């Protein structure tokens, strides 16, 4: 009886020490779930979700504070990926948010631009190049299409244009779904009301 008590106590202390040690030694920095969510989000940093960028939104989802349907640039694909990751049911995109059908980028009309640098400060991914009182221009390949540079522009010289045109962006579309029923009319036997 007494030996058993001692053995259990010793074991408890041993495992306690082991667990305590490993919790310090193998501590995981940051929130791995938030990292995974962040890697799914499209990184436009547009703020349409109500958070200042994709990372804060990812952290909010990880803490359970935000729903998964707040990301219009990601659309359905992101919602499905998030629901897979988090094991929740997919929900349709928040209706209040505007969905962009095609990918866009912005261009600066260099004739009108006065070189105020306001758009440079607004760009979350440093995709605008320029200096005070010098011409500004958008690095097209880096632009995420978040349109955050448009409101601060005092002379309205920033326009939204489709991201890519021409053959490179052309894709095969999904073929029409086959007929669900046979085109041959099937006559229901007498007495049956709802067909077959």
């Amino acid at each position, binding site marked *: 009886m007494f030996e058993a008590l001692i053995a259990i106590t010793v074991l408890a202390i041993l495992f306690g020490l082991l667990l305590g040690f490993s919790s310090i030694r193998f501590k995981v920095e940051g929130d791995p779930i938030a990292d995974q969510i962040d890697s799914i989000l499209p*990184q436009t940093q547009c703020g349409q979700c109500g958070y200042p960028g*994709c990372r804060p939104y990812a952290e909010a989802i990880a803490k359970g504070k935000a729903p998964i349907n707040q990301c219009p640039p990601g659309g359905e*694909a992101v919602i499905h990926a998030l629901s897979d990751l988090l094991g929740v049911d997919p929900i349709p995109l928040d209706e209040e948010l505007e969905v962009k059908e095609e990918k866009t980028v912005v261009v600066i009309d260099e004739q009108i631009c006065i070189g105020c640098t306001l758009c440079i400060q607004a760009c979350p*991914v440093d995709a605008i190049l320029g200096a005070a009182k010098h011409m500004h221009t958008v690095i097209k390949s*880096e632009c995420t299409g978040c349109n955050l540079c448009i409101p601060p522009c005092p002379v309205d010289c920033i326009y939204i244009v489709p991201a890519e045109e021409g053959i490179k962006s052309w894709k*095969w579309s999904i073929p029409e779904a*086959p007929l669900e029923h*046979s085109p041959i009319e099937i006559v229901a036997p007498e007495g049956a009301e709802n067909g077959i």
Partner: protein
Amino acid sequence: MGFKLWQFHGGLRLQGHKKQSMHEAVVKAAIPSILVHPLQQHIGEPAQAVVEVGDHVLKGQLIADFKDHIGAPVHSSTSGSVIAIEERLIPHASGFKALCIVIEADGKDTAFEYPTYDHTELEAEQLRDILRDAGIVGLGGAGFPTYVKLYPGNKHVVDTLILNGAECEPYITCDAMLMQEQPRKIIEGLLIMQHALQARHCVIAIEDNKRAAHTMLVNALKEHEAECIDIIQVPTIYPTGGEKQLIKIITGKEIAARARPIHKGVLCHNVATAAATRDALDGKPLISRIITITGDAVKQPRNMEVRLGTSFKTLLDECGIDRSTPYKLIMGGPLMGTAIHSEDVPVIKTTNCILSLKLEDSKIPTMPCIRCGECAKVCPANLLPQQLYWYARAKDFDRIQDYNLFDCIECGCCAYVCPSKIPLVNYYRFAKNEIWTQEQEKEKSDAARERHEFRQFRMERKKKEDEERKRLKKELLKKTTGQSDDKDNKKAAIEAAMARVKAKKEQQKKNVDDLTDAQKKAIADVDARRKQPKQATSDSNESSDK
């Protein structure tokens, strides 16, 4: 000959429809008045124009070149002047326009002189440079730059070099005609490739229904004492001419998913590419090719040697197209070709066949999949086409890759046998496109995240630096203005500074201090004008308006 052949899974025995275009010898097409050269006729980077509108160019002259990476230059196919560099329709499934160089022929057909070479005196690298500059790409249909394929890398040794003359798709006969008419050129081209690759063994593979081509090649081979070359007849089963299928038949080796034939010591080139290689060493860049113009909508189906840039319309007219009934145009064969939506597109390097077929009246509707499994029986890549179909429809792109979508060669066997007439290949193309797009987007979003994080880091750093600077300035101020910072000291400092500024201002000359008489008069005039009644000015304004 005792050469052991293997078999690949599935495949189809199709009606050839080849005889109709093989009655006549290859005809040289006339030089059209306008030639359109798209800047991208190959896999890789599009070329950049090196000529300007108004320039005069010679036949074979370089008109567009590429910088680095993988690509191919474009040459003018006759002499004339560049009349435009603009977007024109190109033969692509999208029906879109792309940048093209438009040349108006001057009818003289003056050639640009290039040096000729003897390949036995050249190193492999020099050979590759010549082929790159001559714009040679794979003429079988894919258009992959040949010089890249002739570089096996340091790690790999080419054991078997296969020259693909199978031409397994119905209707197409351009390679067969080339083999019949210019067998020596093909063998010489193959020897050049063999020299560049140092391949141990070369095989020319021909389908067993092309007897004439086989005989001509065998005879031509007798003239050359090339012991390393074998000419092999392969069974006529579609798609024998597929790269992986042909390698399986000849060597028994299977190429793994995402691997290239070179990893197994095998390389495949098209017979027409070999002939073009021979031409390149004779100082002729790739400016023309043999193409088959056939189908039941043309009266005179045949093969023609056509200058690149000639429009489909000209060729169809020459072969007597019947425009009275509706027809469809396909570039390539009926199974793997691309539908072309306009006749005003030019022949490009990868155009091997222009097929015009009369449209059938009754379109059979697509029916649901009944899971009969016929598609799996014929799939030459050993895939499960119906599973791929279901996952493509469900847009389940993870699962579809588990079923090796990317091993699909889009040969169309599955869609051909499908009793429900489901356009299966279109589903696979759709799924492949979507997956590529998603991958690109993922890359882009990773780059965006990096930039965003760096920006945040930079702003944070700047904030810290600013604070640090402010702190240092404060400390410095403390030191210079004395240890104590009571109000009197500050006040005194401010007053002293103000006095300094005042003194400086008094010392400065005003711009009205010493003026010339003329300037004084001008000032007086201006003052006088100002004092005039307002009425007068507004009147003069009105009169000037009138």
